[in-house]
Protein backbone atom coordinates (compact mmCIF):
# COMPACT_ATOMS: atom_id res chain seq x y z
CA UNK A 1 0.00 0.00 0.00
CA UNK A 2 0.97 3.62 -0.49
CA UNK A 3 0.20 5.85 2.46
CA UNK A 4 0.12 9.61 2.97
CA UNK A 5 0.80 10.94 6.48
CA UNK A 6 -0.06 14.60 7.20
CA UNK A 7 1.62 15.45 10.51
CA UNK A 8 3.26 18.79 11.37
CA UNK A 9 5.42 17.54 14.26
CA UNK A 10 8.61 16.43 12.53
CA UNK A 11 9.68 13.89 15.18
CA UNK A 12 6.27 12.22 15.28
CA UNK A 13 6.11 12.19 11.45
CA UNK A 14 9.51 10.51 11.34
CA UNK A 15 8.39 7.90 13.88
CA UNK A 16 5.27 7.12 11.84
CA UNK A 17 7.30 6.88 8.64
CA UNK A 18 9.68 4.31 10.15
CA UNK A 19 6.81 2.29 11.63
CA UNK A 20 4.84 2.26 8.36
CA UNK A 21 7.85 1.38 6.23
CA UNK A 22 8.55 -1.49 8.59
CA UNK A 23 5.12 -2.91 7.61
CA UNK A 24 6.34 -3.03 4.00
CA UNK A 25 4.26 -0.04 2.88
CA UNK A 26 5.52 3.11 1.18
CA UNK A 27 4.86 6.47 2.80
CA UNK A 28 4.88 10.18 1.92
CA UNK A 29 4.94 12.85 4.62
CA UNK A 30 3.12 16.19 4.40
CA UNK A 31 3.95 18.78 7.09
CA UNK A 32 0.70 20.70 6.66
CA UNK A 33 -2.80 20.33 5.21
CA UNK A 34 -2.06 22.18 2.00
CA UNK A 35 0.91 19.93 1.18
CA UNK A 36 -1.36 16.94 1.89
CA UNK A 37 -3.96 18.20 -0.60
CA UNK A 38 -1.26 18.83 -3.22
CA UNK A 39 0.29 15.37 -2.80
CA UNK A 40 -3.09 13.62 -2.89
CA UNK A 41 -3.93 15.42 -6.11
CA UNK A 42 -0.75 14.16 -7.76
CA UNK A 43 -0.40 10.63 -6.36
CA UNK A 44 -2.59 7.59 -5.82
CA UNK A 45 -2.74 6.65 -2.15
CA UNK A 46 -4.43 3.67 -0.56
CA UNK A 47 -4.74 5.33 2.87
CA UNK A 48 -4.31 8.89 4.16
CA UNK A 49 -3.62 9.63 7.82
CA UNK A 50 -4.49 13.26 8.61
CA UNK A 51 -3.78 15.16 11.81
CA UNK A 52 -6.53 17.69 12.58
CA UNK A 53 -4.34 20.41 14.14
CA UNK A 54 -1.89 21.58 11.45
CA UNK A 55 -0.57 24.94 10.26
CA UNK A 56 -1.49 26.56 6.90
CA UNK A 57 -4.48 24.26 6.45
CA UNK A 58 -6.00 22.02 9.12
CA UNK A 59 -6.78 18.36 8.50
CA UNK A 60 -10.55 18.86 8.42
CA UNK A 61 -10.38 21.51 5.70
CA UNK A 62 -7.92 19.41 3.70
CA UNK A 63 -10.23 16.40 3.97
CA UNK A 64 -13.29 18.39 2.88
CA UNK A 65 -11.43 19.76 -0.12
CA UNK A 66 -10.23 16.31 -1.19
CA UNK A 67 -13.68 14.75 -0.86
CA UNK A 68 -15.22 17.62 -2.81
CA UNK A 69 -12.69 17.01 -5.61
CA UNK A 70 -13.87 13.38 -5.80
CA UNK A 71 -11.00 11.76 -3.92
CA UNK A 72 -12.41 8.66 -2.17
CA UNK A 73 -9.23 7.34 -0.56
CA UNK A 74 -9.61 5.78 2.89
CA UNK A 75 -8.87 8.41 5.58
CA UNK A 76 -7.91 8.00 9.23
CA UNK A 77 -8.14 11.24 11.28
CA UNK A 78 -5.89 11.87 14.24
CA UNK A 79 -7.87 13.95 16.75
CA UNK A 80 -6.06 15.78 19.53
CA UNK A 81 -8.96 16.04 21.96
CA UNK A 82 -10.90 13.03 23.07
CA UNK A 83 -14.10 14.94 22.64
CA UNK A 84 -17.02 13.33 20.89
CA UNK A 85 -17.75 16.51 18.91
CA UNK A 86 -14.33 16.38 17.31
CA UNK A 87 -14.71 12.79 16.15
CA UNK A 88 -18.24 13.43 14.86
CA UNK A 89 -17.05 16.43 12.87
CA UNK A 90 -14.22 14.38 11.39
CA UNK A 91 -16.45 11.48 10.35
CA UNK A 92 -19.06 13.86 8.97
CA UNK A 93 -16.40 15.61 6.91
CA UNK A 94 -15.70 12.31 5.17
CA UNK A 95 -13.21 10.46 7.37
CA UNK A 96 -13.50 6.67 7.48
CA UNK A 97 -11.92 6.17 10.88
CA UNK A 98 -10.25 8.18 13.65
CA UNK A 99 -7.78 7.73 16.48
CA UNK A 100 -7.52 10.02 19.48
CA UNK A 101 -4.20 11.32 20.71
CA UNK A 102 -2.30 9.98 22.45
CA UNK A 103 -2.71 6.91 20.28
CA UNK A 104 -0.78 3.67 20.13
CA UNK A 105 1.39 3.37 17.03
CA UNK A 106 1.00 -0.38 17.32
CA UNK A 107 -2.76 -0.04 17.03
CA UNK A 108 -2.47 2.30 14.05
CA UNK A 109 -0.19 -0.23 12.31
CA UNK A 110 -2.70 -3.01 13.03
CA UNK A 111 -5.42 -0.92 11.38
CA UNK A 112 -3.25 -0.41 8.28
CA UNK A 113 -2.57 -4.14 8.04
CA UNK A 114 -6.29 -4.80 8.34
CA UNK A 115 -7.00 -2.39 5.48
CA UNK A 116 -4.30 -4.01 3.37
CA UNK A 117 -5.91 -7.43 3.84
CA UNK A 118 -9.32 -6.03 2.99
CA UNK A 119 -8.00 -4.35 -0.17
CA UNK A 120 -6.63 -7.62 -1.44
CA UNK A 121 -9.72 -9.60 -0.50
CA UNK A 122 -12.48 -7.60 -2.10
CA UNK A 123 -12.76 -6.69 -5.72
CA UNK A 124 -14.56 -3.51 -6.65
CA UNK A 125 -17.65 -3.32 -8.82
CA UNK A 126 -17.91 -1.74 -12.28
CA UNK A 127 -16.27 1.68 -12.71
CA UNK A 128 -17.74 4.29 -15.08
CA UNK A 129 -15.85 7.17 -16.63
CA UNK A 130 -16.92 9.15 -19.72
CA UNK A 131 -18.57 6.59 -22.05
CA UNK A 132 -16.49 3.73 -20.62
CA UNK A 133 -17.61 1.00 -18.24
CA UNK A 134 -14.90 -1.17 -16.74
CA UNK A 135 -15.86 -4.35 -14.92
CA UNK A 136 -12.80 -5.68 -13.07
CA UNK A 137 -14.56 -8.93 -12.10
CA UNK A 138 -15.45 -9.76 -15.70
CA UNK A 139 -12.21 -8.22 -17.01
CA UNK A 140 -14.35 -6.46 -19.57
CA UNK A 141 -14.34 -2.99 -21.14
CA UNK A 142 -17.50 -1.58 -22.72
CA UNK A 143 -17.87 1.68 -24.65
CA UNK A 144 -19.21 1.80 -28.23
CA UNK A 145 -18.33 -1.89 -28.48
CA UNK A 146 -16.70 -4.23 -25.98
CA UNK A 147 -13.47 -6.14 -25.46
CA UNK A 148 -11.82 -8.40 -22.88
CA UNK A 149 -8.74 -7.72 -20.77
CA UNK A 150 -6.01 -9.95 -19.42
CA UNK A 151 -5.42 -10.17 -15.66
CA UNK A 152 -2.40 -7.84 -15.70
CA UNK A 153 -4.18 -5.31 -17.92
CA UNK A 154 -7.11 -5.39 -15.48
CA UNK A 155 -4.93 -4.65 -12.43
CA UNK A 156 -3.02 -1.85 -14.18
CA UNK A 157 -6.15 -0.22 -15.59
CA UNK A 158 -7.92 -0.44 -12.24
CA UNK A 159 -5.29 1.75 -10.58
CA UNK A 160 -5.25 4.22 -13.50
CA UNK A 161 -9.06 4.46 -13.57
CA UNK A 162 -9.27 5.01 -9.83
CA UNK A 163 -6.86 7.93 -10.25
CA UNK A 164 -7.74 9.83 -13.43
CA UNK A 165 -5.57 12.82 -14.42
CA UNK A 166 -2.78 11.77 -12.08
CA UNK A 167 0.67 10.84 -13.37
CA UNK A 168 1.18 7.36 -11.90
CA UNK A 169 4.84 6.25 -11.87
CA UNK A 170 5.85 3.06 -13.67
CA UNK A 171 7.12 1.60 -10.37
CA UNK A 172 3.67 1.84 -8.77
CA UNK A 173 1.93 0.27 -11.79
CA UNK A 174 4.48 -2.53 -11.86
CA UNK A 175 3.78 -3.15 -8.17
CA UNK A 176 0.02 -3.64 -8.69
CA UNK A 177 0.29 -5.33 -12.09
CA UNK A 178 2.75 -8.10 -11.30
CA UNK A 179 3.62 -10.26 -8.32
CA UNK A 180 6.75 -8.66 -6.85
CA UNK A 181 8.94 -11.71 -7.56
CA UNK A 182 7.96 -11.81 -11.24
CA UNK A 183 10.87 -9.68 -12.39
CA UNK A 184 8.62 -7.63 -14.64
CA UNK A 185 10.25 -4.48 -15.99
CA UNK A 186 9.23 -1.28 -17.74
CA UNK A 187 9.07 -3.05 -21.11
CA UNK A 188 6.44 -5.45 -19.74
CA UNK A 189 4.51 -2.47 -18.45
CA UNK A 190 4.82 -0.66 -21.76
CA UNK A 191 3.40 -3.66 -23.66
CA UNK A 192 0.48 -3.85 -21.23
CA UNK A 193 -0.16 -0.10 -21.54
CA UNK A 194 0.03 -0.44 -25.35
CA UNK A 195 -2.60 -3.22 -25.26
CA UNK A 196 -4.84 -1.03 -23.12
CA UNK A 197 -4.44 1.98 -25.43
CA UNK A 198 -5.28 -0.10 -28.52
CA UNK A 199 -8.29 -1.63 -26.82
CA UNK A 200 -9.62 1.71 -25.54
CA UNK A 201 -9.28 3.16 -29.05
CA UNK A 202 -10.86 0.11 -30.73
CA UNK A 203 -14.02 0.30 -28.64
CA UNK A 204 -14.21 4.08 -29.17
CA UNK A 205 -13.80 4.89 -25.46
CA UNK A 206 -13.47 8.60 -24.75
CA UNK A 207 -10.62 7.68 -22.45
CA UNK A 208 -6.95 7.14 -23.17
CA UNK A 209 -3.61 6.72 -21.43
CA UNK A 210 -0.78 9.16 -22.02
CA UNK A 211 2.89 8.86 -21.13
CA UNK A 212 6.26 7.99 -22.60
CA UNK A 213 7.51 4.41 -22.65
CA UNK A 214 9.22 4.70 -19.23
CA UNK A 215 6.16 6.32 -17.61
CA UNK A 216 4.63 7.93 -15.68
CA UNK A 217 1.22 7.17 -17.19
CA UNK A 218 -1.92 9.25 -16.88
CA UNK A 219 -5.46 8.23 -17.69
CA UNK A 220 -7.36 11.10 -19.30
CA UNK A 221 -10.75 11.57 -20.91
CA UNK A 222 -10.85 12.77 -24.51
CA UNK A 223 -13.56 14.77 -26.22
CA UNK A 224 -15.69 12.19 -28.02
CA UNK A 225 -17.48 12.65 -31.32
CA UNK A 226 -21.16 12.09 -30.68
CA UNK A 227 -22.26 11.50 -34.26
CA UNK A 228 -21.48 7.78 -34.27
CA UNK A 229 -24.27 5.63 -35.59
Amino acid sequence: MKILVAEDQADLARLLQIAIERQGFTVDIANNGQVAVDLATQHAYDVMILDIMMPVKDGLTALKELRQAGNDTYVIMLTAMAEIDDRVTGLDAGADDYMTKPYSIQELMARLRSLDRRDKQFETGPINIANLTFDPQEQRLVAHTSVRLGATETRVLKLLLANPNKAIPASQLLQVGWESTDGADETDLWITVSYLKQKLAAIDAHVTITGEQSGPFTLITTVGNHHDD
Partner: protein
Amino acid sequence: MNIYGDQAQYLPLILTDLEDRLTDLNQAQPTKLYEHLIGRVKAEPSMIEKCHRKGYPVTAHSALRECKDAIAIRLVCRFIEDVYTTVAVLKQLDWAQVVTEKDYIKNAKPNGYRSYHLILAVTTPYPDVDGHTPGQYFVEIQLRTIAMDSWASLEHELKYKQNIDHPERIAKELQRCAEELAACDLQMQTIRHLIHQDEEA
Protein backbone atom coordinates in the same frame (compact mmCIF):
# COMPACT_ATOMS: atom_id res chain seq x y z
CA MET B 1 -36.77 -20.54 -65.17
CA ASN B 2 -33.64 -19.49 -63.24
CA ILE B 3 -34.18 -16.57 -60.85
CA TYR B 4 -31.13 -14.87 -62.37
CA GLY B 5 -32.68 -15.17 -65.89
CA ASP B 6 -30.30 -14.83 -68.85
CA GLN B 7 -27.70 -13.36 -66.51
CA ALA B 8 -27.26 -16.70 -64.66
CA GLN B 9 -24.59 -17.83 -67.18
CA TYR B 10 -22.45 -14.71 -66.58
CA LEU B 11 -22.36 -14.77 -62.80
CA PRO B 12 -19.67 -17.51 -62.41
CA LEU B 13 -17.60 -15.82 -65.13
CA ILE B 14 -17.80 -12.46 -63.38
CA LEU B 15 -16.91 -14.07 -60.04
CA THR B 16 -13.83 -15.80 -61.49
CA ASP B 17 -12.75 -12.60 -63.20
CA LEU B 18 -13.07 -10.63 -59.94
CA GLU B 19 -11.18 -13.25 -57.96
CA ASP B 20 -8.35 -13.02 -60.49
CA ARG B 21 -8.27 -9.23 -60.33
CA LEU B 22 -8.19 -9.26 -56.52
CA THR B 23 -5.45 -11.91 -56.50
CA ASP B 24 -3.36 -9.75 -58.84
CA LEU B 25 -4.04 -6.72 -56.66
CA ASN B 26 -2.92 -8.66 -53.58
CA GLN B 27 0.32 -9.75 -55.22
CA ALA B 28 1.09 -6.23 -56.41
CA GLN B 29 1.25 -4.91 -52.82
CA PRO B 30 4.53 -4.69 -50.86
CA THR B 31 2.86 -6.72 -48.07
CA LYS B 32 -0.20 -8.72 -48.95
CA LEU B 33 -3.56 -7.20 -48.16
CA TYR B 34 -5.38 -10.41 -47.32
CA GLU B 35 -4.48 -13.95 -46.36
CA HIS B 36 -6.99 -15.72 -48.61
CA LEU B 37 -10.26 -15.11 -50.43
CA ILE B 38 -13.39 -17.14 -50.95
CA GLY B 39 -16.13 -16.34 -53.45
CA ARG B 40 -19.56 -17.69 -54.28
CA VAL B 41 -22.61 -17.08 -56.44
CA LYS B 42 -25.64 -17.16 -54.17
CA ALA B 43 -27.50 -20.42 -54.77
CA GLU B 44 -30.93 -20.05 -56.36
CA PRO B 45 -32.98 -21.36 -53.41
CA SER B 46 -31.21 -18.91 -51.05
CA MET B 47 -31.89 -16.01 -53.40
CA ILE B 48 -35.55 -16.98 -53.80
CA GLU B 49 -35.88 -17.25 -50.01
CA LYS B 50 -34.24 -13.83 -49.60
CA CYS B 51 -36.65 -12.21 -52.12
CA HIS B 52 -39.61 -13.70 -50.22
CA ARG B 53 -38.21 -12.53 -46.91
CA LYS B 54 -37.65 -8.99 -48.20
CA GLY B 55 -41.04 -8.86 -49.93
CA TYR B 56 -39.59 -8.52 -53.44
CA PRO B 57 -41.16 -10.20 -56.50
CA VAL B 58 -39.15 -13.29 -57.48
CA THR B 59 -37.57 -11.80 -60.60
CA ALA B 60 -34.09 -11.41 -62.06
CA HIS B 61 -34.39 -7.69 -61.40
CA SER B 62 -34.98 -8.29 -57.67
CA ALA B 63 -32.12 -10.83 -57.53
CA LEU B 64 -29.60 -8.60 -59.30
CA ARG B 65 -30.69 -5.07 -58.44
CA GLU B 66 -32.70 -5.04 -55.17
CA CYS B 67 -30.48 -7.72 -53.68
CA LYS B 68 -26.85 -6.86 -54.15
CA ASP B 69 -25.13 -10.04 -52.98
CA ALA B 70 -25.77 -12.47 -55.88
CA ILE B 71 -21.99 -12.40 -56.23
CA ALA B 72 -20.00 -12.19 -53.01
CA ILE B 73 -16.32 -12.39 -52.12
CA ARG B 74 -14.85 -12.66 -48.64
CA LEU B 75 -11.35 -11.34 -48.04
CA VAL B 76 -9.78 -12.76 -44.89
CA CYS B 77 -6.96 -10.63 -43.50
CA ARG B 78 -4.29 -11.27 -40.88
CA PHE B 79 -4.70 -8.04 -38.88
CA ILE B 80 -7.47 -5.52 -38.26
CA GLU B 81 -5.46 -2.70 -39.84
CA ASP B 82 -5.07 -4.84 -43.01
CA VAL B 83 -8.86 -4.76 -43.35
CA TYR B 84 -8.82 -0.96 -43.40
CA THR B 85 -5.82 -0.83 -45.78
CA THR B 86 -7.68 -3.17 -48.16
CA VAL B 87 -10.85 -1.06 -47.99
CA ALA B 88 -8.79 2.01 -48.90
CA VAL B 89 -7.27 0.16 -51.88
CA LEU B 90 -10.68 -1.05 -53.08
CA LYS B 91 -12.00 2.52 -52.98
CA GLN B 92 -9.26 3.55 -55.45
CA LEU B 93 -10.16 0.93 -58.11
CA ASP B 94 -11.02 2.28 -61.55
CA TRP B 95 -13.18 -0.76 -62.45
CA ALA B 96 -15.47 -0.62 -59.40
CA GLN B 97 -17.32 1.97 -57.33
CA VAL B 98 -18.27 1.63 -53.69
CA VAL B 99 -22.08 1.80 -53.41
CA THR B 100 -22.48 1.20 -49.67
CA GLU B 101 -20.17 0.32 -46.79
CA LYS B 102 -20.85 -0.88 -43.27
CA ASP B 103 -18.18 -1.05 -40.60
CA TYR B 104 -19.25 -3.83 -38.25
CA ILE B 105 -15.77 -3.86 -36.73
CA LYS B 106 -16.07 -0.39 -35.23
CA ASN B 107 -19.82 -0.95 -34.79
CA ALA B 108 -19.89 -4.63 -33.82
CA LYS B 109 -23.35 -6.24 -33.91
CA PRO B 110 -24.86 -7.01 -30.49
CA ASN B 111 -24.27 -10.75 -30.96
CA GLY B 112 -20.53 -10.05 -31.42
CA TYR B 113 -20.36 -10.20 -35.23
CA ARG B 114 -17.45 -8.21 -36.62
CA SER B 115 -16.70 -7.61 -40.34
CA TYR B 116 -16.44 -4.79 -42.85
CA HIS B 117 -19.06 -4.95 -45.63
CA LEU B 118 -18.80 -3.21 -48.99
CA ILE B 119 -21.13 -3.28 -51.98
CA LEU B 120 -19.27 -2.60 -55.22
CA ALA B 121 -20.79 -1.74 -58.59
CA VAL B 122 -18.59 -3.46 -61.17
CA THR B 123 -18.55 -2.86 -64.90
CA THR B 124 -18.29 -6.13 -66.89
CA PRO B 125 -18.14 -7.05 -70.60
CA TYR B 126 -21.44 -8.96 -70.21
CA PRO B 127 -24.99 -7.71 -70.73
CA ASP B 128 -26.83 -6.87 -67.49
CA VAL B 129 -30.44 -7.27 -66.37
CA ASP B 130 -31.29 -3.78 -67.66
CA GLY B 131 -30.10 -4.71 -71.19
CA HIS B 132 -26.89 -2.66 -71.09
CA THR B 133 -23.59 -3.94 -72.53
CA PRO B 134 -21.06 -3.51 -71.00
CA GLY B 135 -23.23 -4.41 -68.02
CA GLN B 136 -23.14 -3.41 -64.40
CA TYR B 137 -23.27 -5.96 -61.59
CA PHE B 138 -23.28 -5.60 -57.82
CA VAL B 139 -20.77 -7.53 -55.74
CA GLU B 140 -20.69 -7.82 -51.97
CA ILE B 141 -17.21 -7.79 -50.42
CA GLN B 142 -16.83 -8.94 -46.81
CA LEU B 143 -13.54 -8.20 -45.09
CA ARG B 144 -12.55 -9.65 -41.72
CA THR B 145 -9.61 -11.06 -39.80
CA ILE B 146 -8.90 -14.78 -39.50
CA ALA B 147 -10.22 -14.66 -35.92
CA MET B 148 -13.44 -12.90 -36.95
CA ASP B 149 -13.84 -15.43 -39.77
CA SER B 150 -13.62 -18.49 -37.54
CA TRP B 151 -16.04 -16.84 -35.09
CA ALA B 152 -18.51 -16.13 -37.92
CA SER B 153 -18.41 -19.73 -39.13
CA LEU B 154 -19.23 -20.94 -35.61
CA GLU B 155 -22.03 -18.42 -35.23
CA HIS B 156 -23.36 -19.53 -38.62
CA GLU B 157 -23.67 -23.07 -37.27
CA LEU B 158 -25.67 -21.80 -34.30
CA LYS B 159 -27.99 -19.77 -36.54
CA TYR B 160 -28.90 -22.67 -38.81
CA LYS B 161 -29.06 -25.43 -36.23
CA GLN B 162 -32.56 -26.17 -35.01
CA ASN B 163 -33.53 -27.29 -31.51
CA ILE B 164 -30.31 -26.72 -29.62
CA ASP B 165 -30.33 -26.81 -25.83
CA HIS B 166 -29.86 -23.47 -24.05
CA PRO B 167 -29.57 -21.23 -27.13
CA GLU B 168 -29.28 -18.09 -24.93
CA ARG B 169 -26.37 -19.59 -23.01
CA ILE B 170 -24.59 -20.49 -26.26
CA ALA B 171 -25.26 -16.99 -27.64
CA LYS B 172 -23.82 -15.43 -24.47
CA GLU B 173 -20.70 -17.60 -24.68
CA LEU B 174 -20.29 -16.69 -28.35
CA GLN B 175 -20.58 -13.01 -27.48
CA ARG B 176 -17.89 -13.38 -24.81
CA CYS B 177 -15.74 -15.31 -27.27
CA ALA B 178 -16.09 -12.49 -29.83
CA GLU B 179 -14.75 -10.04 -27.22
CA GLU B 180 -11.82 -12.29 -26.41
CA LEU B 181 -10.98 -12.72 -30.09
CA ALA B 182 -11.24 -8.95 -30.57
CA ALA B 183 -8.77 -8.61 -27.69
CA CYS B 184 -6.38 -11.09 -29.37
CA ASP B 185 -6.64 -9.27 -32.71
CA LEU B 186 -5.76 -5.99 -30.99
CA GLN B 187 -2.92 -7.55 -29.01
CA MET B 188 -1.41 -9.11 -32.14
CA GLN B 189 -1.65 -5.77 -33.90
CA THR B 190 0.08 -4.09 -30.95
CA ILE B 191 2.86 -6.70 -31.00
CA ARG B 192 3.26 -6.11 -34.73
CA HIS B 193 3.68 -2.38 -34.03
CA LEU B 194 6.25 -3.09 -31.31
CA ILE B 195 8.26 -5.32 -33.68
CA HIS B 196 8.30 -2.67 -36.39
CA GLN B 197 9.12 0.05 -33.87
CA ASP B 198 12.17 -1.99 -32.79
CA GLU B 199 13.25 -2.34 -36.44
CA GLU B 200 13.15 1.42 -36.86
CA ALA B 201 15.09 2.13 -33.67
